């Protein structure tokens, strides 16, 4: 285990940021800390880096007790959301900074900087200043800077949070490929479930200072531990008191069959290849409620399927859970 976190508690005044957090992060993997803003995931990352202290609990990095080590001595690479570029230094100087601090020879430093700039595809920008780079390029520079010192762990705090959607996607793929090349133990914080599902080997879902679930992206998606995890990983809807994904609901127009819920289509929205239906059940819990109310069920179909069924606003349909559907009992007061 590369990072072992035990019984960590952290408060900011009266606000409980982290409560009894214990977590083992395996060596060489890409782990995502996923959760809503203010849930404590960034605090946990900063505690691993030594940028924040703990009230209770211990942190071990590669077997070394690091709880009270200052950030300088932890040998972790940290990448910030807003790049934290050294503005008065060129790109090459930024990357060389950690090596110069470690008093590496000039030739060594130069060689390593060239390698890293090659790795992050910034070789031709070595002599530019950070202000002359785009956001994505700045973040790649920050990554090279963090990797320069050969850290035992690489920590990324919402690394793509300040970038636009397209660059985010590119950098996400690129980070995955980079990790497959470099194999450094990496932990990154994100509030974007798609990012976590796409990039991470393992996901730790954190909410309100507690760990909700730990698992691989598939485990989390297929077997969410509770309704919070389920709803955080994508859109959900409620059918017969169960939390379900809108695309896991079967729609039929064939008529009443045991175990199905009849309803009326009250809204139909087409987005590209998919059709989103809002169905108001005519019996059971949701019957008779006003538009946009609790009982309404959201269903997603493909365009061709919807056309095949001949559904339109006002048609009566029968809903049932798909056989392979993932569902979770809805808590009395849902977290979302």
């Amino acid at each position, binding site marked *: 285990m590369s990072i072992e976190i035990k019984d960590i508690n952290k408060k900011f005044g009266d606000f409980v940021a982290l409560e009894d957090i214990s977590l083992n992060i395996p060596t060489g993997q890409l782990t995502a800390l996923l959760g809503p803003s203010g849930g404590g995931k960034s605090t946990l990352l900063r505690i691993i*880096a*030594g*940028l924040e202290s703990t009230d209770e609990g211990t942190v071990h990095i590669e077997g070394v007790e690091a709880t009270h080590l*200052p*950030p*300088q001595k*932890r*040998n*972790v*690479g*940290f990448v*910030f959301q*807003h790049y*934290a*570029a*050294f*503005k*008065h*230094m060129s790109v090459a*100087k930024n990357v060389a*900074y*950690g090596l110069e*601090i*470690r008093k590496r020879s000039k030739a060594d430093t130069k060689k390593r900087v060239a390698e890293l700039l090659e790795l992050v595809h910034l070789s031709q920008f070595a*002599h*530019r*200043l950070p*202000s*002359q780079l785009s956001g994505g390029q700045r973040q790649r520079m*920050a990554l090279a*800077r*963090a990797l*320069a*010192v050969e850290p035992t762990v690489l920590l990324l705090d919402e690394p793509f949070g300040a970038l636009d959607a397209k660059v985010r996607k590119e950098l996400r793929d690129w980070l995955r490929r980079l990790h497959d090349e470099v194999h450094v133990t990496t932990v990154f914080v994100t509030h974007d479930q798609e990012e976590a599902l796409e990039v991470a080997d393992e996901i730790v879902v954190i909410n309100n200072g507690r760990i909700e679930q730990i698992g691989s992206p598939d485990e989390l998606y297929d077997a969410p531990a509770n309704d919070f995890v389920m709803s955080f990983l994508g859109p959900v809807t409620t059918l017969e008191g169960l939390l379900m994904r809108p695309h896991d609901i079967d729609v039929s127009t064939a008529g009443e069959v045991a175990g199905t819920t009849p309803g009326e289509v009250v809204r139909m929205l087409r987005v590209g290849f998919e059709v989103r239906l809002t169905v108001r059940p005519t019996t059971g819990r949701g019957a008779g409620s006003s538009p946009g109310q609790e009982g309404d069920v959201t269903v997603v179909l493909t365009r061709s399927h919807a056309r095949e069924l001949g559904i339109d606003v006002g048609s009566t349909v029968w809903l049932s859970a798909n056989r392979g559907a993932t569902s979770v009992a809805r808590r009395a007061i849902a977290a979302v």
Partner: protein
Amino acid sequence: MSLTTSTAPGRVTRARRSARSGSLSVTSGLGLGVAMLWFSLLVLIPLAMVVASAGSTGLGGFVAVITESQTLAAVQLTVLQSLMVTAVNVVMGTMIAWVLVRDRFQGKRILDVVIDIPFALPTIVAGLVLLSLYGPNSPLGLNVANTRYAVFLALAFVTLPFVVRTVQPVLEELEADVEEASASLGATRLTTFRRIILPSLVPSIAAGAALSFARGISEYGSLVLLSGNLPNHTEVAAVRVFTFIENGDTASAAAVATLMLIVALAVIVALDIIQRRVARRG
């Protein structure tokens, strides 16, 4: 960092320059005209007049005035003390700004307001304040009246806020994550200060230093009470100029004024060069 962008690769610089040399629009032409007129009336023409009247006795006359021993002593004292005070201000001012921005303590808000008092006080009142504490009747038993320490003290008093007030906003704007990045790369706090924080502060420190020096060489009011204006000992350039004018010798007064003008320009240019060097080195 508008300064540093000028070091960009050739193409960027050239593109900018050609854009600037294009013709001005009517409004910006008018703006430039008004600005230049105002600046000329207030600054350029009076300055030119002083220089012209300094030259009215010819170069020989000018040199004779400024090399006269009492004048030379006064100019030397003024420049030397101003430089010393500026050096002290650079260190102390940066430190005070640091304390005001980074530390939390009781009475911080009050201190923040009080910093401006030396600047806001009428200078003669500042002189009076200093005289009461460091004069012949000093409750501390420190009597610096009629010595060169008095000159230093008075200058330090009136120039205190300059570096503080120029550094403070820049320090407030510095991002904490840059320092954290430096720390996680293994830099000690001192290294982080020297290589990351200081280069960002240098332009503002230099600006504060220039203001502080300029105020120092021009100071008159706060000095006259405490320093005693002893010729060749505690007489400063401004007092010397005033004496010349009182005696009706405008040409000599203008000559000293011109010399001070040259000194001020030289120091401001030198500060700018130092600032650019340090900011770029990192």
